[in-house]
């Protein structure tokens, strides 16, 4: 089975510093992959490059057959096929502040996919309900708690039904109980339900607990390359690289969930 996302030897320089030197990682359909690393390891940059928000300087990114080449980000008109395939959930949720939770989710349905309003509302309410925020559909982003906003942002990214979902630190704003429920939701999204195809999920996180419980595979990022990869159990229970051990040591600390990622 070919990979839904194939990142090969990705080099990305930011302000004269190599953030990524040669990142190689793959995500298959039905798979949840945790891209792990300490703050500043380049996890966010990798997601942004895969979502065509950020230029990269060498290597290759292929999303479901659509290839991104090194150089400036192409104009939006050329990125349409990619936009249909990839959803991105930002760490700060980045909800549209002037729209309600429901409108945040329906906006792309009605204006990009040209669905009828009633149809879009119905689909959005169902999504919000499945993420446990159906009751907050009429609330504005600033009226939502961090966890609620996070789930509305996930619903917004999922609404156009992307095959690949990129998530940046999805557990940062969640308490442990919410993290567990989010993890189960993500597994369900990856597996596919109701006869629909599964998705691929690439989750940038430094939350080792979350990765161990919910990821199929883990790729540990340090010094701009993946230093260790394998099943979550193999990598996190028997770490072989110092970077992985550092990550695990940090994860034992009480403030792990509040740490920010690059």
């Amino acid at each position, binding site marked *: 089975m070919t990979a839904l996302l194939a990142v090969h030897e990705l080099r990305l320089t930011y302000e004269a510093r190599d953030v990524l030197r040669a990142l190689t990682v793959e995500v298959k359909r039905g798979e949840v992959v945790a891209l792990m690393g300490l703050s500043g390891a380049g996890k966010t940059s990798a997601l942004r490059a895969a979502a065509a928000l950020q230029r990269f300087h060498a290597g290759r990114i292929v999303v479901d057959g659509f290839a991104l080449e090194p150089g400036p980000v192409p104009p*939006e008109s050329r990125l349409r096929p990619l*936009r249909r395939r990839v959803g991105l959930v930002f760490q700060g949720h980045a909800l549209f502040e002037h729209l309600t939770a429901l409108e945040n989710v329906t906006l*792309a349905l009605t204006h990009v996919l040209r669905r009828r309003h009633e149809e879009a509302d119905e689909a959005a309410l169902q999504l919000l309900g499945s993420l446990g925020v159906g009751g907050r559909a009429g609330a504005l982003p600033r009226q939502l708690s961090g966890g609620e906003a996070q789930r509305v942002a996930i619903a*917004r990214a999922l609404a156009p039904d992307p095959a690949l979902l990129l998530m940046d630190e999805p557990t940062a704003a969640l308490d442990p109980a919410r993290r567990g429920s989010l993890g189960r939701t993500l597994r369900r999204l990856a597996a596919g339900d109701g006869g629909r195809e599964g998705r691929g999920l690439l989750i940038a996180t430094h939350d080792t607990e979350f990765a161990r419980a919910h990821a199929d595979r883990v790729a540990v990022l340090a010094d701009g390359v993946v230093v260790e990869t394998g099943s979550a159990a193999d990598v996190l229970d028997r770490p072989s690289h110092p970077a992985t051990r550092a990550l695990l040591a940090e994860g034992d600390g009480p403030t792990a969930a509040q740490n920010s990622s690059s």
Partner: protein
Amino acid sequence: MIHGFGFATPGLLLAAWLGAQGGPGVTLLWGGDAEGGAPFVEADPADASQVRGFDVEVAETIARGLGRHARFVQVQWSSIDQSVERGDFAIGLSGVEDTPARRAHHAVTVPYFSFREVLAVRSEDRDRFSGLATLRGRRVATLGGTMAYDLLLAARDSLDLIPVSYDDDVHPYADLVAGRVDAVLLDHIIAERALRRRAGTGFVIQPQAVAVGRYVGVLANPDSALRDSVDVVLRAAMRDGTLERIFRLWNVWDPSQGDLFRRVAGTALPEPTEAIARSASSVWAYLPSLGRAAAITALLSALSMAVAVVVGLVVASGRVYGPAPVRAVMTVYVEVVRGTPLLLQLFVLYYGLSGLVRLPAFLAAVLGLGLNYAAYEAEIYRAALEAVSRTQLEAARTLGFSEAQILRLVRGPQALRYALAPMTNDFVALLKDSSLVSVLTVVELTKQTAIYATNIGSWIVPGMLCAVVYLAMSLPLARLARGLERRWSAA
């Protein structure tokens, strides 16, 4: 002209204004400054939509002689020459002085009135300051841009006196009585009017004239053929006694006019006629013209703001989204417009460009104000657009929106909320700045108030009325903006 408007809808007002600029063949458009007041040109106290004065009657005499119908155009006195050259009206008549410079640059009629430049001094200085030579080192006031001012400038060098220039002919006399200046040099008609207003107290007019001048009509330089026809009409009016009748009616006749007529037209003195009594002015008579002027101000402000918003959006979009050359052009526009006075821009637009494009005064006013405020609006919109967080824009891109959709659906609506309060401020400021366009012959609220105040010789009632009307327009705007802000920020 504005005085002729009824309470029409804004669109009709505009249409009527634009129509009036065209100047149909049977109409003789003549320009004068009603702020100059009686006996030259003043708003009629009985019907403020009409003007009266000896210059009004001279204009009507000329029009009749040409087989036309006289129609008044309000223009600032100091702008009469430029306005006539750009074709706002055919002839300017409002105590226009016969000077070598005017003769050199414009078509000037034969003189129709002889005036004396007289000195006014405080009563106790009657014997001390009898002529310019006695005023060495003293402050002497006059109206800027007049022959009297030129006399004072010449005397500054030879006699070391200090000329003080005013924009109106009321304050020099007030300041004379208050002791701020020691003498006023102006036309005897103006001096006598000032003395009558003060009931003959406070200052005296020295009998010895400092100089003698003549009033003429001024036409555009290429209009010398029309000027020649006007001269024929004026000479005839001197011969048949029409002009004398007019001047006697307005109490400005004296023997020197007869001398002038004889020199100009070779005529004997006709029979004298009686003067008429002046009717008393009242506040009520002015309310309709103030109402019309307020409507002009409101319409002018609304249209200018519309221009400012549309152009401001284009400029802001250019600065935020455009390629480098477009950004550079927009930046230059913003900096030049913000860095130079609005008054200068209005003059350039109206008079400076009149060789290239002859904009009707109202249109020039709307464009001038609109393009000026567009620069400020553009900066507000640019700041507002940049205040919308970048990650929201990126989130929109990942969802597949086009750049245009992002602006319309995500960035624009939020920027509008940021821009609303400063926009309201600007609209209120524009409402007040609209008074500047009176220099383009547009009679709006402030100008009409000034005309009214000059007419009744007091600013107290006109000033309060004017302030009330401005507040009545600006306060609801502020209220509307607060309401919208509250609704959008509702928790």
